[in-house]
Protein backbone atom coordinates (compact mmCIF):
# COMPACT_ATOMS: atom_id res chain seq x y z
CA UNK A 1 0.00 0.00 0.00
CA UNK A 2 1.21 3.50 -0.85
CA UNK A 3 0.03 6.72 0.73
CA UNK A 4 -0.08 10.19 -0.76
CA UNK A 5 -1.61 13.50 0.22
CA UNK A 6 -2.99 16.16 -2.09
CA UNK A 7 -1.36 18.98 -0.14
CA UNK A 8 -3.28 21.64 -2.09
CA UNK A 9 -6.41 20.63 -0.26
CA UNK A 10 -4.88 19.84 3.15
CA UNK A 11 -6.15 22.06 5.97
CA UNK A 12 -3.42 21.09 8.40
CA UNK A 13 -5.76 19.76 11.05
CA UNK A 14 -3.35 17.07 12.21
CA UNK A 15 -5.85 14.22 12.42
CA UNK A 16 -3.86 11.92 10.10
CA UNK A 17 -0.62 12.46 11.99
CA UNK A 18 -2.52 11.74 15.18
CA UNK A 19 -4.19 8.62 13.77
CA UNK A 20 -1.22 7.11 11.94
CA UNK A 21 1.99 8.80 13.12
CA UNK A 22 4.25 6.24 11.47
CA UNK A 23 3.10 7.29 8.01
CA UNK A 24 1.89 10.88 8.27
CA UNK A 25 3.39 13.91 9.97
CA UNK A 26 2.92 17.64 10.01
CA UNK A 27 5.53 19.38 7.90
CA UNK A 28 7.10 22.75 8.67
CA UNK A 29 4.55 24.53 6.48
CA UNK A 30 1.79 23.32 8.78
CA UNK A 31 0.35 20.84 6.29
CA UNK A 32 0.43 17.08 6.48
CA UNK A 33 2.77 14.88 4.49
CA UNK A 34 3.19 11.15 4.02
CA UNK A 35 6.81 10.64 5.00
CA UNK A 36 6.99 7.00 3.95
CA UNK A 37 5.86 6.05 0.50
CA UNK A 38 5.22 2.39 1.16
CA UNK A 39 2.93 1.90 4.13
CA UNK A 40 4.27 -0.89 6.37
CA UNK A 41 1.83 -3.79 6.57
CA UNK A 42 1.20 -3.25 10.28
CA UNK A 43 0.26 0.38 9.62
CA UNK A 44 -2.25 -0.27 6.87
CA UNK A 45 -5.29 -0.29 9.13
CA UNK A 46 -4.24 2.98 10.77
CA UNK A 47 -3.47 4.55 7.38
CA UNK A 48 -6.91 3.54 6.16
CA UNK A 49 -8.47 5.04 9.29
CA UNK A 50 -6.55 8.26 8.65
CA UNK A 51 -7.74 8.36 5.04
CA UNK A 52 -11.34 7.69 6.03
CA UNK A 53 -11.19 10.27 8.81
CA UNK A 54 -9.58 13.05 6.76
CA UNK A 55 -12.16 15.87 6.84
CA UNK A 56 -11.20 17.05 3.36
CA UNK A 57 -10.55 13.60 1.82
CA UNK A 58 -7.09 14.43 0.47
CA UNK A 59 -5.37 11.18 1.48
CA UNK A 60 -5.08 8.57 -1.24
CA UNK A 61 -4.08 4.97 -0.58
CA UNK A 62 -3.26 2.80 -3.57
Amino acid at each position, binding site marked *: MQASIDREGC*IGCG*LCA*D*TCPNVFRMADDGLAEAFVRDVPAQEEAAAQEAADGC*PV*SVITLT
Partner: protein
Amino acid sequence: MSMFCYQCQEAAGGKGCTTQGVCGKNAEVSNLQDLLIYVVKGIAAKVMARKLPMDTLVTLNREVTTCLFMTITNANFDDAAIARQISRMLTLRDALPTSADDMLPDAVTFQADTLDAMRRKATTVGVLATGNEDVRSLREMILYGLKGMAAYTEHAANLGKEDETLYAFFYEALAAMLDDTLTADALVALTLRTGEYGVKAMALLDEANTSRYGHPEITSVSIGVRENPAILISGHDLADLEQLLKQTEGTGVDVYTHSEMLPAHYYPAFKKYSHFVGNYGNAWWKQLTEFEAFHGPILFTTNCIVPPKSDEIRSRIFTTGSAGFPGCRHIVAQADGVKDFSEMIALAKTLPAPRELEQGSIIGGFAHQQVLALADKVVAAVQSGAIKKFFVMAGCDGRMKSREYYTAFAQALPKDAVILTAGCAKYRYNKLGLGDIDGIPRVLDAGQCNDSYSLALIALKLQEVFGLSDINDLPIAFNIAWYEQKAVIVLLALLYLGVRNIHLGPTLPSFLSPNVGKVLVEKFGIAGIGNVEDDVELFMQG
Protein backbone atom coordinates in the same frame (compact mmCIF):
# COMPACT_ATOMS: atom_id res chain seq x y z
CA MET B 1 -7.67 32.87 5.70
CA SER B 2 -11.24 32.31 4.59
CA MET B 3 -12.75 31.55 8.02
CA PHE B 4 -11.77 31.25 11.64
CA CYS B 5 -13.24 28.84 14.15
CA TYR B 6 -11.67 27.34 17.25
CA GLN B 7 -14.74 26.34 19.22
CA CYS B 8 -14.15 22.58 19.31
CA GLN B 9 -11.39 20.34 20.59
CA GLU B 10 -10.38 19.28 17.10
CA ALA B 11 -9.57 22.81 15.88
CA ALA B 12 -6.94 22.42 13.14
CA GLY B 13 -3.42 22.18 14.41
CA GLY B 14 -4.64 22.93 17.93
CA LYS B 15 -5.07 26.56 16.87
CA GLY B 16 -8.15 27.02 14.71
CA CYS B 17 -9.67 26.07 11.39
CA THR B 18 -8.94 28.66 8.72
CA THR B 19 -9.87 27.14 5.36
CA GLN B 20 -12.42 24.49 6.28
CA GLY B 21 -13.54 23.07 9.60
CA VAL B 22 -12.18 19.72 10.72
CA CYS B 23 -15.84 19.10 11.58
CA GLY B 24 -16.59 19.40 7.87
CA LYS B 25 -18.23 22.82 7.76
CA ASN B 26 -16.99 25.01 4.94
CA ALA B 27 -15.99 28.65 5.16
CA GLU B 28 -19.40 29.81 3.94
CA VAL B 29 -21.19 28.02 6.77
CA SER B 30 -18.65 29.12 9.35
CA ASN B 31 -18.82 32.76 8.32
CA LEU B 32 -22.61 32.80 8.19
CA GLN B 33 -22.62 31.29 11.68
CA ASP B 34 -20.39 34.15 12.82
CA LEU B 35 -22.85 36.63 11.35
CA LEU B 36 -25.81 34.89 12.96
CA ILE B 37 -24.12 35.21 16.34
CA TYR B 38 -23.40 38.87 15.61
CA VAL B 39 -27.05 39.59 14.83
CA VAL B 40 -28.05 37.89 18.06
CA LYS B 41 -25.59 40.07 19.97
CA GLY B 42 -27.24 43.10 18.41
CA ILE B 43 -30.66 41.85 19.48
CA ALA B 44 -29.33 41.34 22.98
CA ALA B 45 -27.97 44.89 23.05
CA LYS B 46 -31.38 46.21 22.08
CA VAL B 47 -33.19 44.11 24.67
CA MET B 48 -30.77 45.25 27.37
CA ALA B 49 -30.91 48.93 26.35
CA ARG B 50 -34.69 49.00 26.58
CA LYS B 51 -34.82 46.56 29.53
CA LEU B 52 -37.49 44.63 27.68
CA PRO B 53 -39.32 42.15 29.91
CA MET B 54 -38.83 38.51 29.00
CA ASP B 55 -42.52 37.69 28.93
CA THR B 56 -43.00 40.09 26.03
CA LEU B 57 -40.35 38.31 23.96
CA VAL B 58 -41.71 34.79 23.72
CA THR B 59 -40.90 34.17 20.04
CA LEU B 60 -37.61 35.99 20.20
CA ASN B 61 -36.45 34.02 23.23
CA ARG B 62 -36.92 30.75 21.40
CA GLU B 63 -35.36 32.04 18.19
CA VAL B 64 -32.27 33.36 19.99
CA THR B 65 -31.88 29.97 21.65
CA THR B 66 -32.17 28.27 18.27
CA CYS B 67 -29.54 30.58 16.76
CA LEU B 68 -27.04 29.70 19.45
CA PHE B 69 -27.86 26.01 19.13
CA MET B 70 -27.52 26.03 15.33
CA THR B 71 -23.92 27.14 15.60
CA ILE B 72 -22.81 24.32 17.88
CA THR B 73 -20.21 22.00 16.39
CA ASN B 74 -21.68 19.37 14.06
CA ALA B 75 -25.27 20.61 14.39
CA ASN B 76 -26.05 22.53 11.21
CA PHE B 77 -24.06 22.50 7.98
CA ASP B 78 -26.82 24.03 5.87
CA ASP B 79 -25.69 27.46 4.65
CA ALA B 80 -29.12 28.22 3.19
CA ALA B 81 -30.83 27.47 6.52
CA ILE B 82 -28.37 29.71 8.37
CA ALA B 83 -28.85 32.54 5.86
CA ARG B 84 -32.64 32.25 6.28
CA GLN B 85 -32.20 32.39 10.04
CA ILE B 86 -30.08 35.54 9.71
CA SER B 87 -32.86 37.21 7.68
CA ARG B 88 -35.47 36.16 10.21
CA MET B 89 -33.40 37.51 13.10
CA LEU B 90 -32.75 40.83 11.32
CA THR B 91 -36.51 41.25 10.94
CA LEU B 92 -37.09 40.40 14.59
CA ARG B 93 -34.27 42.75 15.61
CA ASP B 94 -35.66 45.67 13.64
CA ALA B 95 -39.13 45.11 15.06
CA LEU B 96 -37.89 45.62 18.62
CA PRO B 97 -38.70 49.02 20.12
CA THR B 98 -35.94 51.56 20.32
CA SER B 99 -35.49 55.17 21.28
CA ALA B 100 -33.53 58.01 19.75
CA ASP B 101 -31.49 58.21 22.97
CA ASP B 102 -30.18 54.67 22.70
CA MET B 103 -26.51 54.32 21.82
CA LEU B 104 -26.83 51.63 19.22
CA PRO B 105 -23.82 49.59 18.18
CA ASP B 106 -23.29 48.35 14.63
CA ALA B 107 -24.72 44.94 15.49
CA VAL B 108 -28.05 46.66 16.04
CA THR B 109 -28.07 48.83 12.96
CA PHE B 110 -26.31 47.01 10.13
CA GLN B 111 -28.35 45.65 7.26
CA ALA B 112 -27.69 42.66 5.01
CA ASP B 113 -30.53 42.13 2.58
CA THR B 114 -28.78 39.77 0.19
CA LEU B 115 -26.58 36.73 0.54
CA ASP B 116 -23.65 38.72 -0.83
CA ALA B 117 -24.19 41.43 1.75
CA MET B 118 -24.29 38.76 4.45
CA ARG B 119 -21.05 37.26 3.16
CA ARG B 120 -19.30 40.65 3.13
CA LYS B 121 -20.49 41.53 6.60
CA ALA B 122 -19.67 38.09 7.99
CA THR B 123 -15.96 38.46 7.27
CA THR B 124 -15.77 41.51 9.53
CA VAL B 125 -17.56 40.19 12.62
CA GLY B 126 -15.98 36.80 13.40
CA VAL B 127 -13.90 35.65 16.33
CA LEU B 128 -10.80 37.59 15.27
CA ALA B 129 -12.69 40.89 15.16
CA THR B 130 -11.82 41.14 18.85
CA GLY B 131 -8.18 42.19 18.79
CA ASN B 132 -7.09 41.60 22.38
CA GLU B 133 -6.48 37.88 22.65
CA ASP B 134 -7.44 37.65 26.33
CA VAL B 135 -10.72 39.50 25.86
CA ARG B 136 -11.36 37.38 22.77
CA SER B 137 -10.63 34.21 24.73
CA LEU B 138 -13.01 35.12 27.55
CA ARG B 139 -15.76 36.30 25.20
CA GLU B 140 -15.56 33.10 23.20
CA MET B 141 -15.49 30.89 26.30
CA ILE B 142 -18.66 32.61 27.53
CA LEU B 143 -20.24 32.34 24.06
CA TYR B 144 -19.48 28.62 23.84
CA GLY B 145 -20.93 28.14 27.30
CA LEU B 146 -24.08 29.93 26.11
CA LYS B 147 -24.28 27.68 23.07
CA GLY B 148 -24.18 24.61 25.28
CA MET B 149 -26.81 26.14 27.56
CA ALA B 150 -28.96 26.95 24.54
CA ALA B 151 -28.95 23.29 23.50
CA TYR B 152 -30.23 22.23 26.91
CA THR B 153 -32.67 25.15 27.08
CA GLU B 154 -34.16 24.23 23.68
CA HIS B 155 -34.59 20.56 24.59
CA ALA B 156 -36.36 21.59 27.80
CA ALA B 157 -38.55 24.08 25.94
CA ASN B 158 -39.50 21.34 23.46
CA LEU B 159 -40.94 19.54 26.48
CA GLY B 160 -42.78 22.65 27.67
CA LYS B 161 -40.31 23.72 30.36
CA GLU B 162 -38.94 27.24 30.14
CA ASP B 163 -37.18 29.54 32.56
CA GLU B 164 -37.18 33.24 31.70
CA THR B 165 -34.08 33.88 33.78
CA LEU B 166 -32.11 31.75 31.32
CA TYR B 167 -33.24 33.90 28.41
CA ALA B 168 -32.49 37.04 30.40
CA PHE B 169 -28.98 35.78 30.96
CA PHE B 170 -28.53 35.00 27.25
CA TYR B 171 -29.28 38.64 26.46
CA GLU B 172 -27.12 39.98 29.27
CA ALA B 173 -24.10 37.89 28.33
CA LEU B 174 -24.46 38.37 24.57
CA ALA B 175 -24.78 42.13 25.00
CA ALA B 176 -21.71 42.11 27.24
CA MET B 177 -19.70 40.73 24.35
CA LEU B 178 -20.23 43.98 22.46
CA ASP B 179 -19.08 46.05 25.43
CA ASP B 180 -15.45 47.01 24.93
CA THR B 181 -15.30 48.67 28.35
CA LEU B 182 -15.59 45.40 30.28
CA THR B 183 -12.36 44.41 32.00
CA ALA B 184 -10.89 40.94 31.94
CA ASP B 185 -11.91 40.57 35.61
CA ALA B 186 -15.52 41.43 34.75
CA LEU B 187 -15.45 38.86 31.97
CA VAL B 188 -14.02 36.20 34.32
CA ALA B 189 -16.90 36.95 36.71
CA LEU B 190 -19.35 36.64 33.81
CA THR B 191 -17.76 33.30 32.88
CA LEU B 192 -18.54 31.95 36.33
CA ARG B 193 -22.07 33.30 36.14
CA THR B 194 -22.43 31.46 32.85
CA GLY B 195 -21.64 28.33 34.84
CA GLU B 196 -24.32 29.28 37.36
CA TYR B 197 -26.94 29.52 34.61
CA GLY B 198 -25.56 26.35 33.08
CA VAL B 199 -26.51 24.53 36.27
CA LYS B 200 -29.99 26.03 36.00
CA ALA B 201 -30.34 24.96 32.37
CA MET B 202 -29.27 21.41 33.16
CA ALA B 203 -31.63 21.29 36.13
CA LEU B 204 -34.46 22.52 33.91
CA LEU B 205 -33.78 19.86 31.29
CA ASP B 206 -33.53 17.22 34.01
CA GLU B 207 -36.93 18.29 35.28
CA ALA B 208 -38.36 18.37 31.75
CA ASN B 209 -37.09 14.90 30.91
CA THR B 210 -37.93 13.23 34.23
CA SER B 211 -41.35 14.84 34.70
CA ARG B 212 -42.42 13.59 31.27
CA TYR B 213 -40.62 10.28 31.01
CA GLY B 214 -39.88 9.27 34.61
CA HIS B 215 -36.55 8.99 36.36
CA PRO B 216 -33.86 6.90 34.65
CA GLU B 217 -33.48 3.49 36.22
CA ILE B 218 -30.93 0.71 35.95
CA THR B 219 -31.41 -0.76 32.50
CA SER B 220 -29.73 -3.34 30.36
CA VAL B 221 -29.64 -2.09 26.76
CA SER B 222 -29.19 -4.50 23.88
CA ILE B 223 -26.39 -3.67 21.44
CA GLY B 224 -27.38 -6.36 18.96
CA VAL B 225 -29.94 -6.23 16.14
CA ARG B 226 -33.22 -7.84 15.08
CA GLU B 227 -34.38 -8.79 11.62
CA ASN B 228 -36.83 -5.95 11.03
CA PRO B 229 -36.15 -2.82 9.00
CA ALA B 230 -35.28 0.03 11.29
CA ILE B 231 -34.75 3.74 11.93
CA LEU B 232 -31.75 5.05 13.84
CA ILE B 233 -32.20 8.15 16.01
CA SER B 234 -29.29 10.28 17.12
CA GLY B 235 -28.88 13.53 18.99
CA HIS B 236 -30.41 14.48 22.33
CA ASP B 237 -34.06 15.38 21.93
CA LEU B 238 -36.37 13.03 23.84
CA ALA B 239 -39.52 14.78 22.59
CA ASP B 240 -38.54 13.88 19.02
CA LEU B 241 -37.85 10.31 20.11
CA GLU B 242 -41.27 10.03 21.71
CA GLN B 243 -42.99 11.15 18.52
CA LEU B 244 -40.92 8.76 16.43
CA LEU B 245 -41.71 5.83 18.72
CA LYS B 246 -45.43 6.59 18.60
CA GLN B 247 -45.47 6.89 14.81
CA THR B 248 -43.44 3.72 14.23
CA GLU B 249 -45.45 1.61 16.67
CA GLY B 250 -47.17 -1.26 14.88
CA THR B 251 -45.51 -0.47 11.53
CA GLY B 252 -43.00 -3.31 11.67
CA VAL B 253 -40.16 -0.77 11.76
CA ASP B 254 -37.81 -0.97 14.73
CA VAL B 255 -36.08 2.01 16.35
CA TYR B 256 -32.48 2.01 17.56
CA THR B 257 -30.52 4.76 19.28
CA HIS B 258 -27.10 6.00 18.22
CA SER B 259 -24.42 7.73 20.30
CA GLU B 260 -25.92 10.35 22.66
CA MET B 261 -29.44 8.97 22.35
CA LEU B 262 -28.47 5.72 24.13
CA PRO B 263 -29.59 6.95 27.59
CA ALA B 264 -33.19 7.27 26.33
CA HIS B 265 -33.47 3.56 27.06
CA TYR B 266 -33.08 4.30 30.77
CA TYR B 267 -36.36 6.26 30.98
CA PRO B 268 -39.37 4.23 32.13
CA ALA B 269 -41.77 5.83 29.64
CA PHE B 270 -39.91 4.46 26.63
CA LYS B 271 -39.80 0.88 27.89
CA LYS B 272 -43.35 0.18 26.80
CA TYR B 273 -42.35 0.32 23.14
CA SER B 274 -41.39 -3.21 22.18
CA HIS B 275 -39.97 -1.98 18.87
CA PHE B 276 -37.49 0.30 20.70
CA VAL B 277 -34.82 -2.34 20.33
CA GLY B 278 -31.51 -1.09 21.61
CA ASN B 279 -28.43 0.93 20.84
CA TYR B 280 -26.57 0.57 17.55
CA GLY B 281 -22.89 1.37 17.28
CA ASN B 282 -20.76 3.78 19.19
CA ALA B 283 -19.95 7.45 19.54
CA TRP B 284 -20.83 10.00 16.86
CA TRP B 285 -17.53 10.01 15.01
CA LYS B 286 -17.90 6.39 13.98
CA GLN B 287 -21.11 7.11 12.10
CA LEU B 288 -19.61 7.07 8.61
CA THR B 289 -19.03 3.32 8.77
CA GLU B 290 -21.85 2.50 11.18
CA PHE B 291 -24.53 4.23 9.11
CA GLU B 292 -23.41 2.25 6.08
CA ALA B 293 -24.03 -0.97 8.02
CA PHE B 294 -27.29 0.23 9.52
CA HIS B 295 -29.04 0.28 6.12
CA GLY B 296 -32.10 2.23 7.32
CA PRO B 297 -33.00 5.92 7.68
CA ILE B 298 -31.28 8.04 10.33
CA LEU B 299 -32.84 10.94 12.21
CA PHE B 300 -30.62 13.66 13.68
CA THR B 301 -32.41 15.58 16.41
CA THR B 302 -29.25 17.60 17.14
CA ASN B 303 -25.53 17.25 16.69
CA CYS B 304 -23.26 15.43 16.03
CA ILE B 305 -23.49 15.07 12.26
CA VAL B 306 -20.40 14.01 10.31
CA PRO B 307 -20.75 15.03 6.65
CA PRO B 308 -21.84 11.88 4.83
CA LYS B 309 -19.43 10.85 2.09
CA SER B 310 -21.87 9.01 -0.16
CA ASP B 311 -25.13 10.06 -1.77
CA GLU B 312 -26.63 6.77 -0.63
CA ILE B 313 -26.12 7.60 3.05
CA ARG B 314 -27.12 11.21 2.51
CA SER B 315 -30.41 10.02 1.07
CA ARG B 316 -31.13 8.19 4.32
CA ILE B 317 -30.32 11.09 6.66
CA PHE B 318 -33.13 13.29 7.97
CA THR B 319 -32.68 16.25 10.31
CA THR B 320 -35.00 18.14 12.61
CA GLY B 321 -34.83 20.94 15.17
CA SER B 322 -31.59 22.93 15.04
CA ALA B 323 -29.78 20.27 13.03
CA GLY B 324 -29.38 20.50 9.29
CA PHE B 325 -27.33 19.29 6.37
CA PRO B 326 -27.61 20.39 2.75
CA GLY B 327 -29.33 17.80 0.60
CA CYS B 328 -30.83 15.98 3.60
CA ARG B 329 -34.54 16.29 4.29
CA HIS B 330 -35.37 18.53 7.25
CA ILE B 331 -38.53 17.75 9.19
CA VAL B 332 -40.29 20.76 10.66
CA ALA B 333 -42.95 20.61 13.35
CA GLN B 334 -46.50 21.42 12.23
CA ALA B 335 -48.45 24.14 14.01
CA ASP B 336 -49.68 21.59 16.56
CA GLY B 337 -46.11 20.54 17.32
CA VAL B 338 -46.40 17.21 15.51
CA LYS B 339 -43.47 16.14 13.35
CA ASP B 340 -44.45 13.91 10.48
CA PHE B 341 -41.98 11.03 10.19
CA SER B 342 -44.07 9.07 7.67
CA GLU B 343 -41.57 9.57 4.84
CA MET B 344 -38.82 8.05 6.98
CA ILE B 345 -41.01 5.16 7.98
CA ALA B 346 -42.00 4.46 4.38
CA LEU B 347 -38.32 4.58 3.37
CA ALA B 348 -37.36 2.22 6.20
CA LYS B 349 -39.82 -0.38 4.92
CA THR B 350 -38.00 -0.51 1.59
CA LEU B 351 -34.57 -1.07 3.13
CA PRO B 352 -32.88 -4.12 4.69
CA ALA B 353 -32.55 -4.70 8.42
CA PRO B 354 -29.38 -3.45 10.11
CA ARG B 355 -26.22 -5.51 9.89
CA GLU B 356 -25.09 -6.78 13.27
CA LEU B 357 -22.06 -4.93 14.63
CA GLU B 358 -21.89 -6.57 18.03
CA GLN B 359 -23.90 -8.66 20.47
CA GLY B 360 -24.77 -8.42 24.11
CA SER B 361 -25.85 -5.52 26.25
CA ILE B 362 -24.62 -2.59 28.28
CA ILE B 363 -25.95 -1.26 31.57
CA GLY B 364 -26.82 2.30 32.44
CA GLY B 365 -29.42 4.47 34.11
CA PHE B 366 -27.46 5.73 37.08
CA ALA B 367 -28.89 9.23 37.17
CA HIS B 368 -29.36 11.01 40.47
CA GLN B 369 -32.56 9.42 41.70
CA GLN B 370 -31.40 5.88 40.94
CA VAL B 371 -28.02 6.42 42.60
CA LEU B 372 -29.60 8.11 45.61
CA ALA B 373 -31.91 5.10 45.93
CA LEU B 374 -28.73 3.06 46.25
CA ALA B 375 -27.10 5.63 48.54
CA ASP B 376 -26.91 3.34 51.57
CA LYS B 377 -25.07 0.73 49.55
CA VAL B 378 -22.71 3.27 48.01
CA VAL B 379 -21.97 4.95 51.33
CA ALA B 380 -21.35 1.57 52.99
CA ALA B 381 -18.95 0.61 50.19
CA VAL B 382 -17.03 3.84 50.68
CA GLN B 383 -16.96 3.45 54.45
CA SER B 384 -15.80 -0.15 54.27
CA GLY B 385 -13.07 0.84 51.83
CA ALA B 386 -14.52 -1.35 49.06
CA ILE B 387 -14.76 1.82 46.97
CA LYS B 388 -11.67 4.01 47.35
CA LYS B 389 -12.37 6.59 44.74
CA PHE B 390 -14.88 7.82 42.17
CA PHE B 391 -13.73 9.15 38.82
CA VAL B 392 -16.00 11.48 36.93
CA MET B 393 -15.04 10.80 33.32
CA ALA B 394 -18.02 12.50 31.69
CA GLY B 395 -17.94 14.46 28.46
CA CYS B 396 -17.51 13.88 24.76
CA ASP B 397 -15.80 11.42 22.52
CA GLY B 398 -13.99 12.43 19.36
CA ARG B 399 -11.86 11.26 16.48
CA MET B 400 -8.40 11.84 17.83
CA LYS B 401 -6.31 8.78 18.51
CA SER B 402 -5.06 10.46 21.68
CA ARG B 403 -8.49 9.68 23.15
CA GLU B 404 -7.38 6.08 23.47
CA TYR B 405 -5.95 7.48 26.70
CA TYR B 406 -9.44 7.25 28.22
CA THR B 407 -9.78 3.54 27.46
CA ALA B 408 -6.33 2.85 28.85
CA PHE B 409 -7.03 5.04 31.88
CA ALA B 410 -10.27 3.20 32.66
CA GLN B 411 -8.47 -0.13 32.36
CA ALA B 412 -5.56 0.99 34.51
CA LEU B 413 -7.69 2.24 37.40
CA PRO B 414 -7.42 0.15 40.57
CA LYS B 415 -10.27 -2.32 41.02
CA ASP B 416 -11.65 -0.31 43.94
CA ALA B 417 -12.32 2.72 41.74
CA VAL B 418 -15.70 3.51 40.19
CA ILE B 419 -16.22 5.59 37.03
CA LEU B 420 -19.14 8.03 36.93
CA THR B 421 -19.93 9.01 33.39
CA ALA B 422 -22.32 10.95 31.17
CA GLY B 423 -22.14 11.98 27.54
CA CYS B 424 -20.64 10.07 24.65
CA ALA B 425 -17.22 9.91 26.34
CA LYS B 426 -18.56 6.65 27.81
CA TYR B 427 -18.03 4.75 24.57
CA ARG B 428 -14.32 4.69 25.32
CA TYR B 429 -14.88 2.34 28.28
CA ASN B 430 -18.50 1.21 28.56
CA LYS B 431 -17.95 -2.10 26.79
CA LEU B 432 -14.79 -3.15 28.61
CA GLY B 433 -16.51 -5.36 31.18
CA LEU B 434 -14.87 -3.65 34.15
CA GLY B 435 -17.00 -5.60 36.62
CA ASP B 436 -18.61 -4.42 39.83
CA ILE B 437 -17.90 -3.73 43.47
CA ASP B 438 -20.36 -5.46 45.82
CA GLY B 439 -22.97 -5.31 43.08
CA ILE B 440 -22.22 -1.68 42.11
CA PRO B 441 -20.99 -1.58 38.48
CA ARG B 442 -17.61 0.06 38.07
CA VAL B 443 -18.95 2.19 35.22
CA LEU B 444 -22.04 4.12 36.27
CA ASP B 445 -23.62 5.84 33.29
CA ALA B 446 -25.93 8.70 34.27
CA GLY B 447 -27.01 9.55 30.73
CA GLN B 448 -26.42 12.28 28.15
CA CYS B 449 -23.90 15.06 28.67
CA ASN B 450 -26.49 17.25 30.38
CA ASP B 451 -26.90 14.47 32.94
CA SER B 452 -23.53 15.56 34.29
CA TYR B 453 -25.98 17.51 36.41
CA SER B 454 -26.89 14.17 37.98
CA LEU B 455 -23.25 13.52 38.76
CA ALA B 456 -23.01 16.93 40.45
CA LEU B 457 -26.13 16.18 42.50
CA ILE B 458 -24.68 12.83 43.54
CA ALA B 459 -21.45 14.53 44.60
CA LEU B 460 -23.37 17.15 46.59
CA LYS B 461 -25.40 14.41 48.28
CA LEU B 462 -22.26 12.46 49.21
CA GLN B 463 -20.75 15.68 50.56
CA GLU B 464 -23.80 16.06 52.79
CA VAL B 465 -23.81 12.41 53.91
CA PHE B 466 -20.13 12.48 54.81
CA GLY B 467 -20.52 15.86 56.53
CA LEU B 468 -17.81 17.56 54.46
CA SER B 469 -17.62 21.33 54.18
CA ASP B 470 -15.86 21.25 50.81
CA ILE B 471 -16.95 19.22 47.79
CA ASN B 472 -13.27 18.81 46.91
CA ASP B 473 -12.69 16.76 50.08
CA LEU B 474 -14.77 13.93 48.63
CA PRO B 475 -12.96 10.92 47.18
CA ILE B 476 -13.97 12.08 43.69
CA ALA B 477 -11.59 13.01 40.91
CA PHE B 478 -12.60 14.70 37.65
CA ASN B 479 -10.97 13.58 34.43
CA ILE B 480 -13.23 15.10 31.77
CA ALA B 481 -13.03 14.63 28.01
CA TRP B 482 -14.36 17.49 25.93
CA TYR B 483 -15.11 18.08 22.29
CA GLU B 484 -17.85 20.65 21.73
CA GLN B 485 -19.64 23.48 23.49
CA LYS B 486 -21.99 21.45 25.69
CA ALA B 487 -18.88 20.19 27.42
CA VAL B 488 -17.86 23.83 27.89
CA ILE B 489 -21.05 24.61 29.80
CA VAL B 490 -20.67 21.42 31.83
CA LEU B 491 -17.14 22.52 32.75
CA LEU B 492 -18.27 26.04 33.68
CA ALA B 493 -21.13 24.56 35.72
CA LEU B 494 -18.71 22.38 37.68
CA LEU B 495 -16.44 25.37 38.31
CA TYR B 496 -19.43 27.35 39.55
CA LEU B 497 -20.33 24.50 41.92
CA GLY B 498 -16.87 24.80 43.42
CA VAL B 499 -15.25 21.73 41.89
CA ARG B 500 -11.50 22.21 41.58
CA ASN B 501 -8.57 20.37 40.00
CA ILE B 502 -10.50 19.16 36.98
CA HIS B 503 -8.34 17.48 34.36
CA LEU B 504 -9.44 18.27 30.85
CA GLY B 505 -8.40 16.47 27.69
CA PRO B 506 -7.35 15.18 25.33
CA THR B 507 -6.08 18.72 24.74
CA LEU B 508 -6.90 22.02 26.39
CA PRO B 509 -9.16 24.33 24.38
CA SER B 510 -7.53 26.32 21.58
CA PHE B 511 -9.71 29.26 22.59
CA LEU B 512 -7.82 29.67 25.86
CA SER B 513 -5.21 32.40 25.51
CA PRO B 514 -2.06 31.83 27.59
CA ASN B 515 -3.25 34.35 30.19
CA VAL B 516 -6.80 33.00 30.44
CA GLY B 517 -5.40 29.48 30.61
CA LYS B 518 -3.19 30.65 33.48
CA VAL B 519 -6.22 31.99 35.36
CA LEU B 520 -7.99 28.63 34.98
CA VAL B 521 -4.92 26.79 36.21
CA GLU B 522 -4.18 29.10 39.14
CA LYS B 523 -7.71 29.86 40.26
CA PHE B 524 -9.43 26.57 39.55
CA GLY B 525 -6.65 24.01 39.34
CA ILE B 526 -7.55 23.03 35.76
CA ALA B 527 -4.96 20.73 34.22
CA GLY B 528 -4.50 18.70 31.08
CA ILE B 529 -3.80 15.01 30.89
CA GLY B 530 -0.46 13.24 30.87
CA ASN B 531 0.35 9.58 30.44
CA VAL B 532 -2.02 7.01 31.90
CA GLU B 533 0.32 5.53 34.49
CA ASP B 534 1.37 8.87 35.98
CA ASP B 535 -2.18 10.20 35.93
CA VAL B 536 -3.67 7.18 37.73
CA GLU B 537 -1.00 7.51 40.40
CA LEU B 538 -1.55 11.25 40.70
CA PHE B 539 -5.31 10.87 41.01
CA MET B 540 -5.18 8.03 43.51
CA GLN B 541 -2.87 10.08 45.73
CA GLY B 542 -4.93 13.25 45.55
